């Protein structure tokens, strides 16, 4: 419990509407999109400005109260899981698009702005914001910044970090700094580069400058179906080998297709082993030429059906199935675990065989949805919580898939983050020395570890005192500093 005087002070900062302290309401914030970790925070505060965020963080710093920043709470790794006895700082009331500069292709937004709102605001002028996580209708830019969110189109256009140019940033001690700016290559270390993807462990972005992109002349989406995921994988390899960089390449296996169809009727064929969505964009002539090549490659790989979206509606429908894939699992299973692993793309056939074998051995179904172009897998492990022990088995299976990804030279997470969920997997990818080195960054910016503690790294490094100032050169002191 927080001392009443602190609650009063915070209420004075953010107003009565900006503080949540009733247990029933606090329970809304007990988890993010990863619901198997739940902690009710002592208090939720909802600031509306940089100044309020700063004032709240200053109180936390002064009183040594741990705090966790939260956007829309859609994260899938527990990054916004509250700290027991700590404060949750929700940025959901900071929802303004502050500036739109079309000629320079920049926008400045507050952290609570929903990802899709940016595109909706600028699309009438022919622009869009490229990172498009499947949750883009509800996830916030602040959360995207914390998680370095991706989405299907990051294959060609990169992740959040490739689109963030600058930030106004409240540090864990309550100081405010500007990092980066609207122009490229701000002098000094690339602070936006290390803040993006730091999972809220370094502070709170209160204004974010983003790049937006001109919509290409043409966008074409095709769907191809195959007997097996191997055949679909062969088509993907063929596309890459032909020197084509698609805007997106997505794959779903049989179980995933069935679930998606049941949920949103996207028009996927049901009696096939895999569906591939391929999207190309760019100059119209080039897109149609390359798409012909894609069709040839797909047919050569044994495509049963190859279908082009002829209208925007058809294209939207093709994507609707894919974007609804996670939620659609509810149609085929009472419970499921979403996994997020990465392999070098060429290891796709092997990892799928391994997953199949693991699935068979555990007696649990696994549906596979993936960003096939960049080897980012989302195996969905299906289980029934009501059956004793099955949840544990599902977790074991899901964890084993991640270990296999690392064994193939991949990563434990491509876009969902480490958060609470995957801290222990970090040692599969990194040595102790690697992790200690990473945490030098946290020690420089969040030395007291009050800001989102206990996330990402399995063992927090103790930071110690800030090392001393510049020391004179011993050779100079020894009088040996001879120069030619």
């Amino acid at each position: 419990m927080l001392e009443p005087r602190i609650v009063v002070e915070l209420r004075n900062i953010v107003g009565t509407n900006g503080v949540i302290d009733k247990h029933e309401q606090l329970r809304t914030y007990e988890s993010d999109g990863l619901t198997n970790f739940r902690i009710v925070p002592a208090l939720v505060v909802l600031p509306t400005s940089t100044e309020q965020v700063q004032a709240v963080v200053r109180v936390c710093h002064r009183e040594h109260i741990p705090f966790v920043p939260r956007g829309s709470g859609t994260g899938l790794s527990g990054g916004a899981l509250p700290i027991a006895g700590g404060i949750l700082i929700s940025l959901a009331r900071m929802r303004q698009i502050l500036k739109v500069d079309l000629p320079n292709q920049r926008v400045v937004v507050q952290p609570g702005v929903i990802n899709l709102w940016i595109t909706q605001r600028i699309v009438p002028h022919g622009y869009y914001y490229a990172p498009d996580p499947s949750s883009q209708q509800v996830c916030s830019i602040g959360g995207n910044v914390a998680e370095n969110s991706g989405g299907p189109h990051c294959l060609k256009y990169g992740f959040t970090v490739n689109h963030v140019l600058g930030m106004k940033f409240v540090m864990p001690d309550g100081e405010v700094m500007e990092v980066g700016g609207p122009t490229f290559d701000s002098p000094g270390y690339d602070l936006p580069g290390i803040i993006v993807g730091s999972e809220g462990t370094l502070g709170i972005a209160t204004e974010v400058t983003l790049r937006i992109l001109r919509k290409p002349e043409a966008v074409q989406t095709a769907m191809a179906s195959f007997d097996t995921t191997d055949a679909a994988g062969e088509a993907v390899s063929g596309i890459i080998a032909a020197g084509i960089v698609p805007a997106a390449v997505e794959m779903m296996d049989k179980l995933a297709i069935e679930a998606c169809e049941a949920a949103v009727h996207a028009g996927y064929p049901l009696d096939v082993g895999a569906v591939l969505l391929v999207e190309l964009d760019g100059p119209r002539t080039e897109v149609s030429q390359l798409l012909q090549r894609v069709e040839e490659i797909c047919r050569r790989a044994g495509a049963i059906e190859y279908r082009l979206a002829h209208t925007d509606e058809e294209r939207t429908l093709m994507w609707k199935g894919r974007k609804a894939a996670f939620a659609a699992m509810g149609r085929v299973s009472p419970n499921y675990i979403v996994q997020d692993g990465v392999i070098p793309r060429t290891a796709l056939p092997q990892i799928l065989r391994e997953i199949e074998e693991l699935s068979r051995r555990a007696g649990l179904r696994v549906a596979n949805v993936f960003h096939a172009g960049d080897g980012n897998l989302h195996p969905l492990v299906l289980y029934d919580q009501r059956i004793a022990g099955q949840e544990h088995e599902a977790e074991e299976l899901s964890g084993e898939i991640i270990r296999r990804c690392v064994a193939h030279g991949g990563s434990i997470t491509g876009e969902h983050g480490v958060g609470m969920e995957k801290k222990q997997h970090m040692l599969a990818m990194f040595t102790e020395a690697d992790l200690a080195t990473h945490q030098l960054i946290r020690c420089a910016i969040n030395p007291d570890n009050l800001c989102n503690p206990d996330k990402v790294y399995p063992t927090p490094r103790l930071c110690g005192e800030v090392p001393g100032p510049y020391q004179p050169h011993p050779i100079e002191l020894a009088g040996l500093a001879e120069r030619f």
Partner: protein
Amino acid sequence: MKVSTQSLQETLGSLVDGGVQLATESDVVSGVQPYVVAAPGSEQEVASVLAYANREGLKAIVRGGGTQLNTGLPPGDGDILLSTTRLNQVVEYAPHDMTVTVQAGLRLVDLQSHLARARQWLALDPVLSPGATIGGIISTNVSGARRLRYGGVRDQIIGIRVVLSDGTIAKGGGKVVKNVAGYDLPKLFTGALGTLGVIVAATFRLYPLRAASRTVVLTASTPAPLCDLAVRVIASTLEPTVLDVMSLRATTRPLDQPDSTPQSTRASTGGLYVMTVRFEMEPESADEQAAALVDMARAEAGSRPYSDVQIMQGEAEERLWRQVAVDYTLASDAANALIVKASVLPTDVASWLESLEHTAEQESLKVRWRAHAGHGLIFARLAGDEAALVTAIDQLRGAASVGQGSLVVVDAPPMLASKVDVWGTLPGQTFEVMRRLKLRFDPNYTLNPGRFIGGI
């Protein structure tokens, strides 16, 4: 402990197998003469050298190909020159995954020819001498014209191995393009000028080489209409890989003529400024987009003084780009010349260039510049009087900061580098965070001391 050159050489010789020599005059870095040159053959040897230096209070200057040693402030000190030249291997090339892992001392040109065999490339095209190494390119965050389409170093690098000053060997990122596990060490080390650790290897994402290329060349008597056109191009559906406006002032021959036929620029082109817009894609689309740009330019020919609009391809186009690379290499070539990098918004390029031309005239400076007008980075070579250069840097930095831009001196001979304001200043809190990062990674200032912003 008292260190003599001889004992330093002996000690390092025991740590680095066959890669330690006494330094000579050719190893001077911005006026600082190191005692010995150590060229480790492995990351473990790098670690041994650094741990030793750090323990003994010795300072190390890191050198790759030595093509950008005039970047940054002159080092405050330097006992050991740590050369990465022996770390020059391609560690792992996975063409089908479109990734490559290389050691830091590998030259970019050698990497590109290695990748070209599989019709791929690392999408970085800084205009540097052929000696430029991967480690140096990461550390200086230098980029070229195609950044417009492909992004810069930070957008290509996906993994890194570094050695810290205490000898810790650590990695960040990985070898897959999509990966959000852990803090982004690759980006922290990009542009850090070797002040946080020594880069020993890096992993990059790759792109396929494009099928065809066309370049549209336009000239004008002032830069403004060309910059205006550039802003209209990025607002269109044209997808050039290069969108440059250049001063032809210093060029002694028209860009499309063979090197052997020097003639007056003004006479042949009818203008002093040239715009080059390159389209690299499937041939039919390249033709269409080039033609569309020509139409866009001619549509306003009445009010826009463009002349000599032409589309180049094949050998003539290749010659053009070779010549640009010669004319705009990022190395100061005279004791009274330096190179600055200004970063402004695309819509501010024209007004910044106006400031540049105005300042040059006022201060009697010779200028030659290349503006990447589509993404707002401008490289300018300024030559002249020392006092005039000091004044010009301040004025031009002021002009860039009007639109929240920046300016840094990227290449200056040591005498000039110690006089002009190389980095400018940052807001106090932002700089304080950078200083703290330095103190955590290299508390004794063992690495490249004093070279980076604010004397970091």
